[in-house]
């Protein structure tokens, strides 16, 4: 094994050693040696040529989010890697394990403003978990090992390696056996038992306890443990946007999504609860609203693998640093005998009944879908979700990727999320429009036998739709795109309507005929303008053995409700049009 290799060959072998099978990227001058070597390893390392580096980055994110494995993207120096900045920032906010491999100009011209030179390690310092500039071929084997370890362990995140062209071209005998030397990086997985017992003591004293489950539950693969825990204690479960899929929504203890566009009963339950158990969520401001008014009666137990998240936004009574799965296992082990749970159980049904009463009063899901005031509309967006929801449930084996905006919130609200973890993939923390189409490419490659629906607004779709060509070139057939086309940057328009006196500044949006655009890319393209055409279009998309785009030309000015205005307490919701 101790044969001489070029730096670029070492990069390929390092990736293969770490189990990487697919990479998304675009070549260019500085990264060419890597592409030269990649050809030799093409049976083990699949390269997907994207149309824009942003697409490559989101595809890597989609792959990572759909599998829990490392996503890899590649860009060349200068504009190639600056185009990766948005997906890297997105991965940082959503704790997605991706590796960005960047070509850099030769070390002899580094720092001299050479052609296509950009200080990408400087640019990405605040938006990566860690990054590297490698100038010496002898460092490559170690740096790749360390980088992938950092990206995929603890709280996962994006790691970038910038490699000078000469480091890829030079040859050396790689040393694969160097031990990791990371004295400052030792993530805590096992929770402190004393804290676990404190948490149980607090939960047993509760009369109105509540669980919030976030992305951490999905990343730790802790859904089973969460279900057991909730059932044992009979505590209702709220799932954040990124927690969707961690707990089935058809479970009697499931309440749905909280926050800015969460359900009224979820937000009211948070405001009323006396003990709040947050596992793997980071109390994002879209969940808490005005943080000082959040859960005023609750003592908070916060479980997170990242100690810096605990106490950052919300005051915590019992902090637990640890992996969600190991923490739930420890909690289950430390649970007292059934008799000791009697008092907790005694309150459980009253509390649940109270929450369900609030829910019935404001909106059961389907009641909301069939709102009376949509009758005059040719195609209310809600009809698309209602039909898609039924079609997906019948079809099974599906995953849904959403973009950012109104269509994203409707998807989170109106689809029934019962298909398990990693079936709902979206851009949360960064709110990156343009995420869905390229991310669906990564999801589709990871799960070739599932049907992947990318739901996207007409604004976000026009940011990255060139990846339709990538999907076609790669022969991917299991992607179906639903454009929720209202001719506006709809969420911004909604804010303008509600808070800025309907001054629609910069939000009306035109576009090409999306179905014909799709046809031009070799896809099947369908246009739907009336509610009675929705079902047929979805059926046709499912029946087609190839990528399909459906342009749903929905009613233009429809708002996402309920809504908590920014910086307001989640207790102050706009529930329907009538309150606005």
């Amino acid at each position: 094994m101790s044969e001489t290799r070029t730096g670029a060959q070492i990069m390929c072998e390092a990736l293969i050693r770490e189990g990487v099978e697919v990479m998304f990227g675009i070549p260019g001058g500085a990264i060419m040696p890597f592409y030269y070597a990649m050809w030799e390893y093409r049976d083990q390392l699949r390269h997907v040529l994207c149309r824009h580096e942003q697409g490559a980055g989101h595809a890597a994110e989609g792959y990572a989010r759909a599998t829990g494995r490392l996503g890899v993207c590649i860009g060349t120096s200068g504009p190639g890697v600056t185009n990766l900045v948005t997906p890297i920032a997105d991965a940082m906010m959503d704790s997605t394990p991706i590796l960005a491999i960047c070509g850099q100009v030769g070390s002899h011209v580094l720092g001299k403003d050479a052609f296509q030179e950009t200080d990408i390690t400087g640019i990405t310092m605040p938006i990566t978990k860690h990054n590297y500039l490698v100038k010496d071929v002898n460092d490559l084997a170690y740096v790749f090992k360390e980088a992938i370890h950092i990206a995929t362990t603890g709280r996962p995140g994006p790691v970038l390696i910038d490699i000078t062209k000469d480091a890829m071209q030079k040859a050396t005998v790689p040393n694969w056996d160097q031990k990791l030397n990371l004295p400052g990086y030792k993530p805590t997985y096992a929770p402190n038992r004393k804290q676990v017992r404190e948490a149980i003591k607090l939960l047993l004293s509760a009369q109105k306890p509540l669980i919030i489950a976030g992305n951490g539950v999905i990343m730790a693969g802790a859904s089973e443990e969460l279900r057991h825990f909730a059932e044992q204690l009979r505590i209702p479960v709220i799932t954040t946007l990124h927690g969707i899929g961690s707990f089935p929504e058809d479970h009697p203890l499931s309440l749905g999504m909280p926050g800015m566009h969460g359900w009224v009963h979820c937000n009211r339950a948070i405001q009323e609860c006396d003990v709040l158990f947050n596992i793997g969520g980071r109390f994002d401001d879209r969940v808490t609203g005005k943080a000082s008014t959040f859960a005023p009666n609750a003592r908070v137990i916060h479980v997170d693998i990242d100690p810096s998240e605990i106490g950052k936004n919300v005051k915590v009574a019992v902090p637990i640093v640890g992996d969600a799965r190991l923490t739930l296992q420890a909690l289950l082990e430390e649970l007292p005998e059934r008799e000791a749970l009697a008092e907790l159980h005694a309150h459980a049904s009253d509390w649940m009944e109270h929450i369900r009463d609030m829910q019935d009063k404001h909106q059961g899901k389907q009641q909301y879908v069939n709102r009376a005031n949509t009758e005059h509309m040719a195609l209310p967006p809600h009809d698309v979700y209602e039909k898609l929801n039924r079609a997906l449930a019948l079809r099974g084996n599906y995953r849904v990727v959403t973009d950012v905006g109104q269509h994203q919130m409707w998807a989170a609200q109106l689809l029934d999320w019962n298909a398990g973890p990693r079936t709902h993939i979206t851009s949360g923390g960064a709110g990156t429009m343009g995420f869905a189409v390229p991310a669906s490419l990564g999801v589709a490659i990871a799960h070739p036998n599932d049907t992947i629906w990318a739901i996207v607004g007409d604004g976000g779709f026009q940011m990255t739709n060139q990846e339709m060509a990538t999907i076609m070139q790669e022969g991917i057939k299991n992607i179906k795109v639903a454009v929720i086309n209202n001719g506006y940057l709809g969420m911004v328009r909604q804010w303008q309507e509600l808070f800025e006196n309907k001054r629609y500044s910069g939000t009306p949006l035109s576009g090409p005929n999306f179905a014909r655009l799709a046809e031009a890319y070799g896809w099947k393209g369908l246009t739907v303008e009336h509610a009675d055409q929705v079902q047929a279009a979805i059926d046709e998309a499912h029946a087609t053995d190839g990528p399909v785009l459906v342009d749903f030309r929905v009613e233009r000015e429809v708002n996402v409700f309920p809504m908590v205005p920014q910086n307001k307490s989640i207790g102050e919701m706009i529930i329907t049009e009538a309150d606005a």
Partner: protein
Amino acid sequence: MRKHTIVALVQDRPGVLSRVAGLVRRRGYNIESLAVGHSEQPGVSRMTIVVESDHVEQVVKQLYRLIEVIKVSDVTTDPTVEREMVVLKLHAPAAARHEVVSMCGVFDAKIVDVGTSTMIVEMTGTPAKVENFIEVVRPYGIKEMMRTGRIAMVRGARGHNASEYVESAGPNGATVPTLN
């Protein structure tokens, strides 16, 4: 906002100083001073950071998120030895020299350069003493001033020996520390 003295041990790798400085800036904390240099362990640097913040535990936790940060302590309320050095170029024509020299004697300051109308003096002490000295000599006319920023070390057996946290140093066991 309260001032806090934070002592950090960090791996001596390229860019670690900008990582630390950048993190403190972007999280909205104000750095009053930051001093960095080699520690007793090759490959490990020791930093003393003085920050203004009412949420110092967040500063500490955020610093721990940096991969190269090994150990962070807020030593504000610990018994410590704190030192700072100042080098001053004073306006000191012949007539004023005698007074300046005697003032330096009071503060244990050293005269390291004498020109026709200026003197350079260096002075080391607690930050309070340095402050005091600067105020006392200010009336003579300070032409240039350079302060190192505070360095701090916890008294007694407590504290942080860098070798406790590190088996070997640098990405390739490199022992030549580089700071950029």
